Structure formats: structure tokens, C-alpha cells
């Protein structure tokens, strides 16, 4: 058995000492938020403003026979009511938010229900009035008649012939196949075959700030929309939905009070734009928490079935994986979530004989779309539990079994792409397990279990989308730095990271940098804050821009200092001679020289991701993503065998994130992802019965509180500097979540000697599993 190798390869990218990158600096957005001065989209008011709300369908599957807003329109103070008849001219696009590199699929949605309701909460009407109270009164006066239509609420049912059709001609809205090697031979070569089916549940983003925005039409007939969004590039699809030119819609993205993928699709924008155009007044729409359950797509539930062959020595011979996703009532991003899941389904392991069949199926449940992890999260819940089951079947230690199967750098992933960055899964698992330490002692009714989960999570968007990102960096006459970027800051410090990068390259401390971001009219478009791409793509655009500017400044400084270019460095707002720090000029002086010489004191750069064609539809082979992050989580739980309740005692996360930009921000993402994953495994579930949401409040949909997080948590941050992002960075936004829920599930299975295959792993299911396993053994 090989001893875990603790010496890591030397960094491959530049080895120069970093002044700011990697440090836990105070973020640029922190102070404003701490003072309550930061304005979110709902914190603005405008003179003459109207308040708008949505009337929603109270049932999941129905025909709208009639809707009559005439009494409501007559109520004093009501400015405008729109129904499906008023919004029929256009539909709203939902395919691939905010991208230009690929032809958009026509999965456009009705803006308001015309004749058919497909999900509980689907919008029937928009009401704008002088006050919110009047709008609510008016809403109660709208008369409508819904005739229930037979619906379908389970994807496996929706696939059967004769099922009610929700989308397409057969309810199938996406499918992907992977065919690699020879699966039949793999099963013949196996000593054991393990077949298990894992099920995951509907999950809600539960960002603390519900969806919100405000729109107004200005003197140039530009529709301005201030909105909490992850994607300012929606201006294009909004423009088409309302029938105006692209350059007449402006999105002012506010700082976002949490997104996690739930503000990746359009939410309130089109409604606001239509109302603003109809009334020619500013209109504000603030979703209540009740709206929010129905206001954005949820995380896809998945059914993932494995049939995996393994030798007694511990080598996986092959895997046949069948995946069914519930796409809910509308397509949105289901085909892509499905692709991510299919690709991730074997896990970060070498599986040469692979057959994956996956399908996303429409139902009359709430529509499902983007959520942190985007299908790879669900795959991890399945593949990491399957790995433990395989290990148990052959009687091998779970970590040693993984060690025999890890994918290594340069080896092909499920789609045949060979990863070129470091693949430190083994080191992450080993370090996480070591830090977890010995099992805590059992006491009373408590049984203790430990579990580990490894993962492969992409960063950057699908390469077939030909993703790009822009950033502008400039330096002022006093030596302060300005960054301009469309990037939306959704709480992970996306904006501050760009300041830190620009500051690093230009030798300016973070407090002397500022970012103006998120305005589609004036900030260069950076693309979405999704897919763990903001640091990679916009960070590289920022680095490219700042580097070009740096080069010009260094050249001019060298001339001033009378040395060669490679003797000059920038730091602490100075340009100085390396090794002779008393020979310097201030940046302010340097910029003055540049200005007088007509040297360009700013730079706009575009960074392109790798571009590919879509993968082969028959084999699923090809490059799908730019690159992947690898890591692991180790968890220890105490299970109360009286009640099934679970306490997470210890948690260790180990991720190779390439290079930290802001170390505290990386830790924050890991800690937040850990909490989110614990909720995913234990307590969170949106329950739909016949499509009706049964859990429409935070007292029924239970996210972890301060009392539910691990009693002890450690983050181990490994930096291989091998990523495609700035300074060798990869990403952390999604990876922070991906391994957590499966690690919790594995720990519980270890504690009770039985496995619950259905998420969430509730106390009730744990007691049932304990009972079943006692029955078997007695």
C-alpha cells in the first residue's frame, strides 16, 4: 500500500511572491454591508412609483377558462393589470442565460398563462397600483376560472405511454448518452456486481433576499431595470420578450442577497418591463417569501441507478448508470443539468467501461433549473454512496478502495477528456480523513459514524457555449485603481476578487481600488456569475487587462528610473527597482508621466474560454468543460438511535482550488457550502403532492440554523496553482457544496450499519433502516 504522498508538485505558474493575492483581505463590499448602507434592489424608491404583485394559479394542472380583471381595474389606485391576453405577443426565452456563443434553443415560455397552467403558482396576472395594499385588494378581486386538467407528477410516470403531456411530444426535454469501452465484458470480468438506486429531492435555494426589482422607462425610451440577478446579460432576452431593441434595455444589477443559481434565470424583469411600458411610471416588484417558492426554478430531483462491476482486488471494471431527472413544468436549464450529472456520474474515478443513459422529463411539478452544483451535486450523492457500497461488498476499507480507482491527471474522464490540471483527489481525501481523526466515543443512545466523499466539479461554462468575459482596468491620476466589469456580485466577493487581482498587478493596495460593476449599459459584459466561472473567466479578463496596463507602466517607469524593464516592480503604490527599494517613483508620479506622454492608462480585455463543438450524441465523448476542481469532505456524525436525529460532530473539507485570491472568502464559501450540504442531506425537502407545494415557509422547509452546523469544522485549502484561472486558480463556489451531502450520508450509514437510499436522510428513515437491519441480523 502506498503511503499518502504529502509532498506536492511545485507551482507551475509564476513563482514570484504575491503581495495581496492569497491573503484574507477585507473585502471591498464588507464595510458598506456592515453599516447597512449597502442598497439591495428593494432598497430604492422613485417618485411616482407603482407597486406590483403577481396573481398565481392555485393548482398545478389546469385550463384557464376565463379571467376577468374588470372589477379589479376599477378599484381606485389601480394603475394597470396585465393577463395572458396582454402578453401574448412574445414569449420569454429561457435557454442558456446570458450567452452569445451558441444558437439558442427554442424553449421559450409564456410570460403569463394564456390557456394552460402547468405548475402550482404559475403567474396568471400582474397588478400595479399606487400602494401594495391596493394591489393586494385588487388581486383578490380578479375573477378567474380554472378547470383541472389531468396532470402527471412523477417523471417515471410521465415517461409511460398515455401519460399527460406537459412538454414536447413525450415529456422528454433532454437526454444524454455516454458509451465508452465494453460494458458487457466489464460485468463478465467483475467478481461482484452492485446494483443500487439513489434518489434525491427537490431543493430550494432559500436565499435570504427574495426576488426583487424596479423598472422605469427613461427619456430615451430605454427600459431601465434594477434587479437582483446573477445575469445582467438578460437584457437581450428581456428586450425580445417585450418587443424592443437590445440596446434599449438596461440592467442595473444590484448587489445580490444570495443567488446559488436561483437568480440565474429571469425572475421579475419581464413583468416589470411590461408594467413600466404600459404605465410609463416606475414600477417596483418585491416578492414575498411566499412568491419566492413559486418564483424561480428548484433543484432537480434525480433517480440515479447504478449497476457497477468490481473485482475482489478492488478495481471497478465498469458501470452502467441510468439517470432520470424531474424537469418540472418547463424546460429551463434541464438539458444542461442533466449533462453535468451524466458526466459526473462515475465520480472522480477511472472507469473505462461506462454506459450512461440519462433523461430529463417534464411533469406538473414546479419547474427545475440551476442550483449550485448543477447536476454534479446530485451525481456525487449517488457515486460516493455507491463507492462505499462497493467497498463494503468486497470487504475493503472505503478510502483504500477509492485509492485503487482514482482518476489521475492526464487520464480520461467520462467523456474522454483528459484533465490537464492537477487532480489531487487522493491527497484531499487523505488529508480530510486524517484531520477528522479518531471516532468520538459512543454514549447512551448515540452511535458514531464517519464518512468521506470525493468529487469532480467543473468550473467554467460548457465549452460548446464559447464563453467569453470582459473587464476594464484603469488607473487614476492619483494612483488609485478602477475596475469596471459587468460581473454580478452575489455574495462570494466576485467584485472584490477582481480588485485584488488588479491591485496585485498594479502594485496598489486593495483599499485604493474600487470596482464599478453590474450595469449592462456602462460596464463591459463579464457574463454570468454561475458555473463557478466568475473568478476564472472575469478574473482572467481582469488579469489580462491589468497585465497590459502594468506592462506599459513598467516600461515608462524603467525609463524614469534608468534601468531595464525586468528590474522594475510595482507594489505599495510605488514603482521601484527590485533589490534597491529606495530607488522608486510613486505611482502618482508614474501615472503623471504616462498621462503627459499619451500612454493609455486603461485597458479593456476579453478572455475566451476554450471553444468546442457539442459532444458526440451517440458516445457522449468530447470536451464539455474547461476544467475541473477535485476535493473531498470528511464528516463525523452522532446518530440518536432513540429518535433517528443526527448531530454533525466534525467536518473537514479539503479542496484543491488552484490558488486562493482571498483566503477568507474561500473559507467562507467552504463553510457555507458545508452548512448547505448538511441541510441537503438531513432536513431540506420541498414536498409536492399532486404538484401542490406542501412546504411553503421556512418553518416547513428547514435550512440549517446556527444550531445545526458542525460542532467543529476545518477547511484544508490546497493550492496546486494548476488551474486555468488567474495565478492558477480554479473555482470554489460549487465545489464547496458538492461533497458534503454524500459525506454525511456515508457517515450515517457507517453509524447505523444500514443505508437510506432516499434523500433527505430523515430521522424517520434512519429508524426504519435501523429496524430493518436489526430484523435481518436477529
Amino acid at each position: 500500500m502506498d503511503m499518502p504522498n504529502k509532498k506536492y508538485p511545485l507551482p507551475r505558474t509564476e513563482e514570484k511572491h504575491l503581495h495581496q493575492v492569497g491573503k484574507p483581505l477585507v473585502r471591498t463590499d464588507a464595510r458598506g454591508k456592515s453599516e447597512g448602507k449597502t442598497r439591495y434592489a428593494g432598497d430604492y424608491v422613485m417618485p411616482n412609483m407603482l407597486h406590483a404583485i403577481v396573481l398565481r394559479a392555485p393548482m398545478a394542472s389546469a385550463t384557464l377558462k376565463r379571467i376577468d380583471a374588470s372589477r379589479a381595474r376599477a378599484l381606485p389606485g389601480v394603475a394597470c393589470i396585465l393577463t395572458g391576453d396582454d402578453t401574448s405577443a412574445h414569449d420569454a426565452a429561457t435557454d442558456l442565460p446570458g450567452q452569445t456563443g451558441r444558437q439558442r434553443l427554442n424553449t421559450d415560455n409564456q410570460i403569463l398563462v394564456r390557456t394552460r397552467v402547468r405548475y402550482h403558482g404559475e403567474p396568471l396576472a400582474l397588478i400595479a397600483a399606487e400602494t401594495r395594499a391596493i394591489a393586494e385588494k385588487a388581486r383578490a378581486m380578479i375573477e378567474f376560472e380554472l378547470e383541472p386538467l389531468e396532470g402527471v407528477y412523477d417523471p417515471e410516470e410521465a415517461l409511460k405511454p398515455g401519460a399527460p403531456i406537459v412538454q414536447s411530444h413525450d415529456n422528454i426535454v433532454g437526454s444524454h448518452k455516454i458509451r465508452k469501452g465494453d460494458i458487457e465484458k466489464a460485468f463478465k470480468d467483475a467478481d461482484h456486481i452492485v446494483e443500487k438506486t439513489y434518489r434525491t429531492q427537490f431543493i430550494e435555494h432559500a436565499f435570504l433576499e427574495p426576488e426583487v426589482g424596479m423598472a422605469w422607462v427613461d427619456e430615451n425610451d430605454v427600459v431601465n431595470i434594477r434587479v437582483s440577478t446573477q445575469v445582467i446579460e438578460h437584457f437581450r432576452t428581456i428586450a425580445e420578450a417585450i418587443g424592443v431593441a437590445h440596446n434599449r434595455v438596461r440592467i442595473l444589477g444590484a448587489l445580490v442577497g444570495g443567488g446559488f443559481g436561483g437568480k440565474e434565470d429571469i425572475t421579475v424583469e419581464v413583468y416589470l418591463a411590461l408594467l413600466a411600458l404600459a404605465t410609463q411610471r416606475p414600477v417596483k416588484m418585491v416578492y414575498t417569501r411566499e412568491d419566492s417558492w413559486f418564483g424561480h426554478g428548484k433543484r432537480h430531483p434525480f433517480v440515479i441507478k447504478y449497476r457497477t462491476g468490481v473485482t475482489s482486488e478492488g478495481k471497478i471494471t465498469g458501470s452502467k448508470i441510468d439517470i432520470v431527472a424531474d424537469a418540472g413544468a418547463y424546460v429551463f436549464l434541464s438539458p444542461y443539468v442533466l449533462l453535468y450529472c451524466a458526466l459526473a456520474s462515475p465520480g472522480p474515478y477511472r472507469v473505462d467501461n461506462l454506459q450512461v443513459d440519462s433523461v430529463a422529463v417534464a411533469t406538473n411539478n414546479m419547474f427545475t433549473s440551476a442550483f449550485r452544483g448543477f447536476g454534479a451535486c446530485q451525481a456525487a450523492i449517488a457515486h460516493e454512496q455507491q463507492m462505499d457500497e462497493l467497498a463494503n461488498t468486497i470487504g475493503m476499507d472505503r478510502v483504500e478502495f477509492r485509492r485503487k480507482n482514482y482518476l489521475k491527471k492526464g487520464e480520461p474522464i467520462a467523456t474522454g477528456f483528459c484533465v490537464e490540471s492537477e487532480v489531487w483527489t487522493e491527497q484531499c481525501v487523505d488529508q480530510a480523513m486524517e484531520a477528522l481523526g479518531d471516532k468520538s466515543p459512543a454514549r447512551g443512545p448515540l452511535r458514531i459514524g464517519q464518512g468521506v466523499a470525493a468529487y469532480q466539479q467543473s468550473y467554467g461554462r460548457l465549452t460548446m457555449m464559447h464563453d467569453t468575459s470582459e473587464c476594464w482596468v484603469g488607473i487614476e491620476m492619483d494612483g488609485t485603481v478602477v475596475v469596471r466589469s459587468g460581473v454580478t456580485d452575489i455574495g462570494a466577493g466576485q467584485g472584490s476578487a477582481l480588485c485584488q487581482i488588479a491591485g496585485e498587478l498594479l502594485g496598489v493596495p486593495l483599499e485604493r481600488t474600487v470596482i464599478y460593476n453590474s450595469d449592462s449599459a456602462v460596464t463591459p459584459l463579464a457574463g454570468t456569475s454561475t458555473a463557478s466561472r466568475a473568478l476564472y473567466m472575469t478574473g482572467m479578463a481582469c488579469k489580462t487587462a491589468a497585465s497590459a496596463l502594468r506592462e506599459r507602466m513598467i516600461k515608462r517607469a524603467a525609463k524614469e528610473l534608468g534601468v531595464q524593464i525586468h528590474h522594475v516592480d510595482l507594489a505599495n503604490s510605488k514603482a521601484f527597482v527590485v533589490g534597491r527599494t529606495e530607488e522608486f517613483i510613486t505611482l502618482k508620479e508614474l501615472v503623471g508621466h504616462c498621462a503627459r506622454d499619451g500612454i493609455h492608462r486603461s485597458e479593456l480585455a476579453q478572455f475566451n474560454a476554450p471553444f468546442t463543438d457539442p459532444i458526440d450524441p451517440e458516445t457522449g465523448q468530447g470536451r464539455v468543460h474547461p476544467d475541473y476542481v477535485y476535493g473531498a469532505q470528511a464528516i463525523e456524525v452522532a446518530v440518536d438511535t432513540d429518535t433517528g436525529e443526527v448531530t454533525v460532530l466534525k467536518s473537514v473539507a479539503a479542496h484543491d482550488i488552484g490558488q486562493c485570491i482571498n483566503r477568507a472568502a474561500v473559507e467562507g464559501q467552504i463553510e457555507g457550502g458545508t452548512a448547505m450540504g448538511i441541510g441537503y442531506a438531513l432536513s431540506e425537502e420541498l414536498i409536492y403532492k399532486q404538484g401542490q407545494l406542501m412546504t411553503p415557509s421556512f418553518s416547513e422547509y428547514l435550512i440549517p440554523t446556527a444550531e445545526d452546523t458542525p460542532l467543529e469544522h476545518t477547511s484544508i485549502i490546497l493550492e496546486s496553482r494548476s488551474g486555468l484561472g488567474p495565478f492558477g486558480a480554479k473555482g470554489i463556489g460549487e465545489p464547496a457544496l458538492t461533497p458534503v451531502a454524500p459525506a454525511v450520508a456515508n457517515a450515517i450509514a457507517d453509524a447505523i450499519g444500514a443505508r437510506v437510499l432516499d434523500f433527505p436522510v430523515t430521522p424517520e428513515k434512519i429508524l426504519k433502516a435501523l429496524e430493518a437491519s436489526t430484523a435481518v441480523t436477529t
Partner: protein
Amino acid sequence: MTNIKPVTLEINGRQETIAAPNNMTLLEALRELNHFEVKCGCEKGDCGACAVLIDGEAVDSCLMFAHSAVGQPVTTLDGLARNGDDQHPLKKAFVEKGAIQCGYCIPGMMIAAQSMLNKNPNPSKQEMREGLGGNLCRCTGYNKIFDAIEAAASELCGGGKG
């Protein structure tokens, strides 16, 4: 419209008047009065984003009518202040410990923290968990929030227990 009496509320030491229907909550009144530092997360008392201090004790402003708050000193995040340029120790600690991500839960979180510190100047980690159990955060996992409160407690009254 019936039932709209002007009410005067004492907010952060100032008298502020608003025409408040009887069914207007304190949260609605505060935001009408441009106190945007008070956030709205659920309007049911499940999330704590709207927490303010009433006479030094944290309450969910969505669970109180504006009229009920008459005659009681209300403190929002703006009321946690120091003179001059120095930040209130809680705010400073939240900033320095990296406890703020999207920031939306933060006003309520700080109010709950201050309320807890008002009664218990040196809370243990477990006491912090109990004190913040009614403030949901989806971004941070709470760890750095505990670190910040510990640091602030230290500065506010000297010493601190783990």
C-alpha cells in the same frame, strides 16, 4: 381609508412620524421611513432578517404592529454606532473576520448578537448558537459570524470565553 393614524416612533433616538394603518407592521413602517437597513426575509418570524432592538432586546419587526412600538425605543443597525470614524466593535469585527458574504442577513444577525451581548457579555460558542438560532444565513455557515461576535465581545467588555 379608515384606520390611518399618524404614529410617532422613537428610532435610533430620533422621533419619526408615519401615517400607519393599524395593520402595518413595524417592519413595514421602518422601511416606509427609509430605514432600508432593516431587511425583509419572510414576514413570518422564521428568518430573523428584520430584527431590531426594542429597549435593548431583539425582536422580529415583522411580528409587531407599528402601533405597538409607540413609546418604546427602537434601535436598528444604524443605531449601533460609535462617535467619529470608528466603527461599532460588532461591525468592525464582522468586517475583519470575513463574516459577511451577501450581507442580507447581517443587520438582523448583528441586532441579535447585540441583544445577546446585552444580557451575556461573554457568550460561549454554544450560547452563540442558541442566541442566533432564529437568524437564518444561507451563505456563511455561521462560523465566521461566531468568530466576529467573540472578537467583538472581547473588545466590548474585555476577555472572552471560547
